[in-house]
């Protein structure tokens, strides 16, 4: 199985927790959504908000049950809900 390097975008709370607004991550090119979320939460320190995060791959929502085929340079956005107003 090949390994790819993908770009990660952080929004709102996850930007604070990760301490960066964008980063890169190396992962197996074929991965289940929830597995990717676990790895990202672990690596970037997002465990406290893991269950309420939404992931998007190249600006498309990821269903956590789905198997993803990632390519080099793909972009994952990590989006927590915001509730303020």
């Amino acid at each position, binding site marked *: 199985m090949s390994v790819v390097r993908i770009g990660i975008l952080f*929004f*709102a*709370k996850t930007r604070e927790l990760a301490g960066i*607004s964008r980063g890169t991550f190396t992962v197996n090119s074929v991965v289940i959504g929830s597995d990717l979320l676990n790895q990202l939460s672990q690596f970037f320190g997002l465990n*406290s*908000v893991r*269950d*309420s995060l*939404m992931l*998007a791959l190249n*600006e*498309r*929502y990821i*269903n956590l049950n789905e198997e993803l085929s990632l390519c080099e340079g793909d972009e994952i*956005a990590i*989006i*927590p*809900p*915001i*509730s*303020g*107003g």
Partner: protein
Amino acid sequence: MDNLSLQKQDIEELRSEIAKLRAALYTKEQQLQDLEQLHAQQSGNDPDSAVVQQEHEEKAEVHTHLTNDDIARFSRQLILPGFGVQGQLKLKNSAVLIVGMGGLGCPAAQYLAAAGCGRLGLVDYDIVERNNFHRQTLHSEKKEGMSKVDSARIALLELNSSCQIKCHTRLLNSLNAFSVLRAYDVILDCSDNVPTRYLLNDACVMLGKPLVSGSALKMDGQLTVYNYGADGPCYRCIYPVPPPPEAVTNCGDGGVLGAITGTIGALQALEAIKVIVGLGEVLAGRLLIYDGFSNLFRNIKIRSKRPNCHICSAEPLIRDLIDYELFCGMHATDKDNPLQLLEPEQRLNVFEYQELQSAPHLLLDVRQPAEFEICQLPSAVNMPLAEILDDSYVKRFSSQLESKEFPIVVLCRRGNDSQIAVQHMRNRYPDHSIRDVIGGLHAWSNKVDNGFPIY
């Protein structure tokens, strides 16, 4: 103290006393409203359904033409392709409910009233405070202490006197949500807390109403339209599980820039107008993410309805409104809930700390540097909570930590973070004299030094 400054102090004290009395009055009024409503529901005589009835009768009186004043007033939008006379008439015959008259609700209401929306409903239980002015642009200085919906109504009628505005001065809950929402075509979620977001979502799904949802915090914003169109998801489809309370930041703690809430609120008005008029592509099935730091807008294609969604699927598990504060483990306001983590002997009140001030001690202020810069007590050392929790304090204060007797006092804005810090430090140093200040700097300002700024 001279006579003038004594007078000034009296004025300040009276002002704050009046504001507190007003707040207490509003709370009582709301309790009364809710009790009356419960009573009426249980005795089968719901006053709000009478109101709904009346509003439906008003609705029967459909506007079929524009007046000369309408034409002159709305000429710049009447000539827009796709909007036109028919669009203006749809707006004139529409009813929009705005939940939350804060940073999002003010600009949203302002653009809807100005654009000629016929009927607006405003929901908020809160009163106008000075820290609202920087972003809640319908509330002006003279209205401090007034209920937010009354204040907003006055400002909106100045913009457009023919807009019919109904005030709902109450906290929305499972008991009153249906009767409040029922009379409106589109609902705007301009609220500031998680339980209200789930409540509005579930009520809108059950009533089949589109929900224009906006939110903002710090420099970030989000916007989407839920429950719109055959495939349009609801809030629960996207966020089935509420975030843990400790991961939720409100504007009072995290801060927010008025231009951010203004941007999102104005866009909520735009989406409401598009839904009503049938103009353009409504932002359903897409989530707009706004990053004000780099001024980037991103459109994320979100999922369609979740087949097993607890509320909007064909076989919903939730068939009636639930207790949303219980479900989320949070209160339906953005006000702070005081934590109770420490034992009484691990805490000092502000007077006890005042006595300790002249003796040798270490005062750790665990607020963010930006907050520390606003105001601080003499000799306080800024050590943000994160640096307590990652143990960087251990090295930095090694000499003070050598003795178990040396008093270490931890301080924050309201006495919550300071408890978290003390708890963490006491795990490592159980027998040291490490205590926090009850009520933090707010208590200091209220009880010891009225001249100390509150933010």
